[in-house]
């Protein structure tokens, strides 16, 4: 594997006395599509914050392109979770994308022509031209995701982080966002790390999976990770992996009175974890 875009080594994060992440190890190669899978509270957002430099690790380290980060946010595009925009915000989709080009700079824009070209290119990459002139707050969830992805892509990052981009989307919009991200990954050669609590929508496109449970991680190809023995070790109790017509169900083992309360699943999902 050539020099990894992102290397996470023995990463541990402790927040308010709780070990949110514990010895997380994985690496992402350039242009790879990686799914970060885990239920709510598994530590996905904390892991993203640590990668972005917004959360200081208590142990381990994060390397970007094989080196410690030079400055915050450099080379990473970020699409945050649950992004709610005020419908009256006076900002068109293309304005938000343009902010991705040079929002870090002070004073008036000096590279207007280059910026305009870059905005058009980024909008085209996510098929957002049709609604680029509407106020962002009035766009649908899926359309806002596209604008935010274009915002993140315009600075030509080597790694794109998307935190739960499929949450709150209907099935069709979710599928569209997944295939869009897969296409961006292929066409622009940018490594994509996308977090989700559901594994199935991502199965067809993932090169690699990082499975988080109780702050610990297992990583590899889906065949290497989505196995009863690997996931049982991660969850700390027996789980079964069942294939139902190409869909994966991860089920807490029957008759096993292991510590289910320690799972993050809600009561109605006690049995089927994924």
């Amino acid at each position: 594997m050539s020099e990894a875009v992102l290397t996470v080594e023995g990463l541990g994060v402790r927040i308010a006395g709780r070990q949110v992440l514990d010895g997380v190890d994985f690496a992402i190669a350039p242009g790879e599509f990686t799914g970060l899978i885990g239920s709510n509270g598994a530590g996905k957002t904390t892991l993203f914050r640590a990668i972005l430099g917004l959360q200081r690790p208590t142990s381990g380290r994060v390397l970007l392109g094989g080196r410690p980060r030079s400055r915050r946010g450099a080379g990473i595009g970020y699409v945050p979770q649950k992004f709610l925009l005020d419908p009256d915000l006076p900002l068109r989709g293309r304005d938000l994308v343009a902010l991705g080009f040079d929002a870090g700079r002070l004073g008036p824009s000096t590279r207007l022509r280059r910026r305009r070209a870059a905005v058009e290119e980024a909008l085209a990459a996510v098929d957002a031209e049709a609604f680029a002139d509407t106020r962002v707050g009035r766009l649908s969830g899926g359309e806002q995701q596209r604008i935010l992805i274009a915002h993140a892509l315009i600075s030509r990052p080597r790694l794109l982080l998307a935190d739960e981009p499929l949450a709150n989307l209907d099935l069709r919009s979710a599928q569209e966002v997944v295939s869009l991200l897969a296409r961006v990954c292929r066409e622009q050669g940018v490594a994509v790390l996308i977090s989700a609590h559901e594994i199935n929508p991502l199965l067809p496109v993932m090169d690699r999976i990082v499975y988080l449970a109780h702050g610990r991680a297992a990583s590899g190809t889906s065949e290497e990770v989505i196995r009863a023995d690997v996931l049982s070790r991660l969850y700390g109790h027996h789980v079964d992996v069942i294939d139902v017509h190409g869909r994966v169900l991860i089920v807490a083992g029957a008759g096993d009175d292991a510590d289910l309360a320690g799972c993050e699943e809600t009561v109605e999902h006690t049995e089927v974890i994924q």
Partner: protein
Amino acid sequence: MSAGLFVFAPGFFDNEAVHVALAVGTAVAIVTAVVGVFTVMRGQSFAGESLGDIGTTGGAAASLLGVGPLAGFVAIDVLAAAAMELVGVQRVRGRDLATGVVLGAAIGLAALFLYLDTTQGSGNGSTVTILFGSIFAISSATIPAVVALAALSVALIAILYRPLLLATVSPEIAAARGIPVRLVGALYLLTLALATALAAITIGTILSTALLIGPAAAALRLTTRPLRAMLVATAIGIAAVWVGVVLAYDSYHWPPQEHGWPVSFFVVALIFLGYLASGLVKWRQEREA
């Protein structure tokens, strides 16, 4: 009644107080429009209103000390903004609490200073001037300070424009990009303090929010881009101040005779009309769309 039919009452163009009022009003309308668009977008209208009210304390203290009100407004508003920042204006929920706590403390002091002003001061109606303003009472010596503070605020917004806009849309994305969100927010709060102080000398501490929020809120209904909103808000603000000055000057010829009506009344009423009109325009736009 001597009231003739005129737009500009006799002597309007030769009156120095009118010249000063127009100059100060124009500078202040520009600053409040530029800063106000961000105030509305950031949902910090309450902070703006509070800084305005808190200005009363500074104005009353300045009057006790015998210095001009502008110095008092600026000093107290910058102090209050710093206090809000320290108490926790950076958290959305903490923001209103911090603002409220600082507001309460300052208004208590204002009560004391205004009391001392009326009982010990010259009793020349400074309380009404502080609270409701009197643009005709501004000394021409104040103009350089007004212009300098106005230029400073607008320059700060121009420098911070892009990071501030992204931090306003999403503090999370801004922080992930390496923008120092808290510092940007604190500098913005400084411009808000300056803008509020300038609005206070124009239309009084109590009414200062009208100039800060009104034109910006109207402009944000009419345009989909922040820079255009600033231009539209500036136009609305300047129009309200100018027409307000003209009407107030005319009002010396209206009943009751020999006393003009307060300028602040006209300015605020015109801003309110502008806001209503913007709603009408938007409603028609959306019906046609």
